[in-house]
């Protein structure tokens, strides 16, 4: 038998508990999310920069 109704009830209870956290705790959660987003953005920028060929550096070592 499916446990889905129980799972949904547990999820709803968990969400209610999160809403009952103090305002300061919720603000700290958002600050943690912001830090994570910044890190993801920075790592994405670094990855893009490493993929972009350097226009000055020769791409073919035989030409170097």
């Amino acid at each position, binding site marked *: 038998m499916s446990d889905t109704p129980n799972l949904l009830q547990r999820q709803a209870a968990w*969400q209610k508990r*999160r*809403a009952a*956290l103090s*305002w*300061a705790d*919720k*603000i700290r*959660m*958002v*600050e943690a*999310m*912001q*830090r994570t*987003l910044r890190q993801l953005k920075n790592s994405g920028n670094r990855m893009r920069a490493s993929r972009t060929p350097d226009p000055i550096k020769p791409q073919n070592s035989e030409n170097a």
Partner: protein
Amino acid sequence: MCVAGVINNYALFGAAAQMRYTEAVATLDADVLVSVAHPERLDILAPICEFCAAHGYMPEGEVIQIGSWPVQFVPVFNQLTREALEKAETADFEGIPFRVVGAAYLAAIALSAARAKDYARVLALLESGSVAPSELEALAQRHGLLEAWKRFKARFLDE
């Protein structure tokens, strides 16, 4: 800023204020409603920017970076926001008193903004029980938002 006479009053609104009543929601900035000392100025936010810069908080485009938060100062722009600011509550943020727009006004301002994320805010505030539909309807009626409220209600509540 109030003491220095740069602004007359302030209150946090938007997502950061909404979180007093609902679950934490992802937001990148903090919105602060302000009534300024000289609303007739064309560069209405200049005194705020100058005050913040003098205290080491530099403007970056539309926002002022304060700690980890980009903060957007929004001067009151209609009767609804003026009233929201006047009737804002003083919340306690870990011992620090902080003026915050109340739940009903947060919902009404979101209703007037009418973007998808604003509708989600109205729903979250209603579901949290911090504002009753009848309270929001009365506020909407007083501020010319009755049609917007009816559309919202038909779309999201009257299923």
